[in-house]
């Protein structure tokens, strides 16, 4: 798990006034689960968008599987398709559940129906495959979003607050699938969460982000038991108000 899949150097990203993200250095290891915690507006979701190559940085570089993205540049499509994101608020296409899950395969010109079925079984929605996706509950919609990511068998899965506002059953299910994807398929996971307990349950390494900066990044045990930065300690103890 020591091979580096992402190498970010000197990254800045701004939208109008002020920086949304200022990252001197970040390496993400292949096959790890990296959790990024921090308050709203800390730049976590901005970082995920850069990692999914949905945006390019204002300065700095991102190296991913041998290719590099610089300001204004774009990652080759083939490599961009090795990464996908599950967002906090999934927006599903106005089609059936199965069609939503199949969509990513369709984009790649691959019509593998068995994988769609298998992904829906994994998230426990095989019975709803013909139902219109927009009639689903929030938890079911998030599971469809996870299934449409699983079906692509990504090398990197980015999870942006995937269990926010979900009931404990769905939280447990999604965490279990994420762990399984990492352990059985070796996928690299980057999890953005407000929930320190979730980070503790899932992550190998945890980073705290504040005001667009990575304050501390450490192995999960060290992050929670002996944080180096006092702000990390305050965050872990739940003393940081946000």
């Amino acid at each position, binding site marked *: 798990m020591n091979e580096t899949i992402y190498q970010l150097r000197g990254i800045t990203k701004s939208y109008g006034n002020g920086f949304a993200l200022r990252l001197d250095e970040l390496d993400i290891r292949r096959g790890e689960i990296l959790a990024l915690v921090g308050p709203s507006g800390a730049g976590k979701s901005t970082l995920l968008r850069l990692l999914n190559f949905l945006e390019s940085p204002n300065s700095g570089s991102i190296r991913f599987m041998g290719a590099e993205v610089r300001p204004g540049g774009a990652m080759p*499509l083939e490599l961009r398709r090795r990464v996908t994101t599950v*967002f906090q608020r999934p927006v599903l296409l*106005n089609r059936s559940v199965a069609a939503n899950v199949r*969509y990513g395969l369709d*984009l*790649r010109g691959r019509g593998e129906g068995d994988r769609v079925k298998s992904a829906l079984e994994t998230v426990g929605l095989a019975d709803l495959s013909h139902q219109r996706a927009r009639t689903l509950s929030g938890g079911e919609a998030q599971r469809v979003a996870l299934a449409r*990511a699983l079906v692509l068998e990504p090398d990197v899965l980015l999870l942006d607050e995937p269990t926010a506002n979900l009931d404990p059953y769905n939280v447990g299910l999604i965490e279990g699938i994420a762990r399984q994807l990492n352990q059985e398929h070796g996928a690299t996971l980057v999890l953005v969460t407000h929930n320190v307990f979730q980070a503790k349950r899932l992550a190998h390494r945890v980073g705290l982000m504040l005001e667009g900066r990575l304050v501390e990044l450490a192995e999960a045990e060290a992050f929670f038991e002996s944080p180096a930065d006092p702000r990390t300690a305050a965050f872990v103890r739940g003393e940081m108000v946000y």
Partner: protein
Amino acid sequence: MPALVVWIGIDHCGDSLPSRRFCFVQERATIETIWNGLKEAIRLIVSQDPALFEILLLSLRVSGTALLFSTLIGVPLGAVMGLSRFIGRRFLIALLYTGMGFPPVVVGLFVYLMLSRNGPLGQLDWSIIPNLFTPAAMVVAQCIISFPLVAGFTMAAVMGVDPALRQQVQAMGATRWQTTVAILSEARVGVIVSVIAGFGSIISEVGAVMMVGGNIEHRTRMLTTAIVLETGKGNFDLALAIGVILLAISFITNVAMLYLQGKGFDE
């Protein structure tokens, strides 16, 4: 000429007994005219009247061609305007909205001046530029009327799609083109409405086709211009009959579009 009497009657309906009696006679005449119009419409359709079918086919050909071009130009333009942010976009949107309210007769005048022998395009004498008083000239005029509607409604439909969808589709590996197709697909109800609105604006339009087509028998006579002509000649039965057919076309088109749309409208 019953309807002519009706027209006079409207102005003379008063409280006095002779006036009321006069109005009663006129109302009967109006109902008779409408009834006769309906009967005539059925008769013309059942007997497959060649003159009527010639006008009908020309109308469908001209408006259908204009709609095809309007859709080919308007849908991509609306999609680009809805999805992109660029300098001058607001100005273009203002132009588009102005175009959506173009009075057809003004469009007719504009196309007439452009295509006339001494007009900027007419004097070029290029084969690609249509002559006045031809179906092609009417197609040009109807295109100008309908394409802002198609583009404007498409733009509104595209802008109505959840902005987060775009990013989520891209996150699944969609190219820019695939993303545009996905958004248009999500906005399909609005896009279909834009095409229906475009068709409605031209199939029922009379001012522009009258000016650039000239309502020439066997050449440029359309359903709407025929109604004007027959009304002018006092053939109200025939004018109404053509009107009924025009309404039927509009209705059938809308039902067909709704059918094609399928379940999208159920939500």
